[in-house]
């Protein structure tokens, strides 16, 4: 495994730790933390701060009987079932987004495949499969885009991204990622613009026809 060189910014990491990051982005961050020791340590440092704030908040008394209710619940509840675990190249957060199943790819043309994992008002999350040496059509997006490499690599105007690397792209970046020659590239991508499927697929396909 090569060294991870593209990390999560402080801003996004703080938003993740405090629970203020939309779902699609938080899956990408959790997947990156699964692969990146340095960012996991940073996130845990930010959680220490959360714990310190919790410790010093002015307490609000629990109602009488709360303790008895809790003790009764200890007897009555069984431990939650184990969460879905990582599998192959997919860290646990990705497997959870996949519902524990292998990806069901949809062909987008030019050998590029994708699976939408979630899409709501706050953003969308998808897996992308790009054959070796192939470029994803140039695209712009309505805001923030986070792309985490899970297999292979891609390169664009911002540099080379290998397994575990995250590209953070804003509006200003007009990029055309190209998969490395070593093999197919699989990545997890979150955007905050809602996906419009009918409009998006032709837009993705159109430049491909010109290749």
């Amino acid at each position, binding site marked *: *495994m090569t060294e991870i060189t593209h990390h999560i910014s*402080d*801003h*996004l990491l*703080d*938003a993740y*730790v*405090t*629970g*203020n990051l*939309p*779902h699609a982005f*938080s*899956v990408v961050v*959790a*997947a990156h*933390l*699964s692969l990146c*020791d*340095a960012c*996991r*340590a*940073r996130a*845990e*440092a*930010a*959680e*220490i*701060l*959360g*714990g*310190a*704030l*919790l*410790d*010093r*908040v*002015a*307490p*609000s*008394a*629990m*109602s009488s009987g*709360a*303790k008895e*209710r*809790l*003790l009764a*619940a*200890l007897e009555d*509840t069984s*431990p*939650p079932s184990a*969460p879905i*675990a*990582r599998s192959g190249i997919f*860290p*646990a*957060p990705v497997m959870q*987004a996949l519902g524990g199943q292998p990806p069901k790819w949809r062909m987008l043309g030019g050998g590029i495949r994708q699976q939408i994992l979630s899409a709501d008002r706050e953003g969308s999350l998808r897996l992308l499969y790009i054959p070796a040496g192939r470029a994803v059509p140039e695209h712009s997006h309505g805001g923030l885009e986070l792309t985490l490499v899970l297999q292979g690599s891609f390169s664009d105007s911002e540099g080379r991204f290998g397994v575990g690397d995250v590209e953070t792209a804003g509006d200003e970046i007009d990029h055309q990622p190209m998969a490395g020659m070593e093999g197919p590239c699989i990545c997890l991508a979150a955007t905050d613009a809602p996906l419009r499927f009918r409009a998006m697929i032709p837009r993705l396909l159109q430049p491909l026809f010109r290749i």
Partner: protein
Amino acid sequence: MHHGDARPASEENGFLSNDKTSPTQPTLWLLAVRDRRDRTAFLQLFDHFGPRLKAMLIRGGLRDGSAEDVVQDVMLTVWHKAAQFDAHRAEASAWIYRIARNRRIDLARRKPPPEPDPLAEPEGSEPDAPQILALGQEASMLRRALEALSPDQAKVLEQAYFEDLPHSRISEMTGLPLGTIKSRIRLGLERLRRDLKDLRQP
């Protein structure tokens, strides 16, 4: 219950133990729950964190009754997931904060938040006392820095950690003097690296 006499005199400053060679009192309680399923220790955790969690959840917009229900959920999760607590990487307060945050996200979005791959302690590994001590020292540095903030600065942090703060506003936290301390906390990075390497072996 005799929680009154179990509390050290330093409760006001967040259970900083005077003796810097041992974990905080809540962390010791959580370890007793993890290792011995100690119900007395569990109720001491509840006495300490229950009212604080409730206050935090009310700050986050929950009504009194729902806040208490969520506290119950959080404490049950603490009981059931105690085996996953790793004193090398977290104190009880941070670990419980994370559980409460996840529960809040789960309720707000109606789907559980993603969690990174668990890092299991290697089978039969012994506690690494210097590592636990280093974590405690770094955490108390952070607590002291927190006490030194102005009320306005502390308020931004509490908004971010307890309430819904749009991620565009999170950058207000970045300018706080805590950044330097936070970035120095490596939390046993070497140990993490070791664990992750094991995990990555096919």
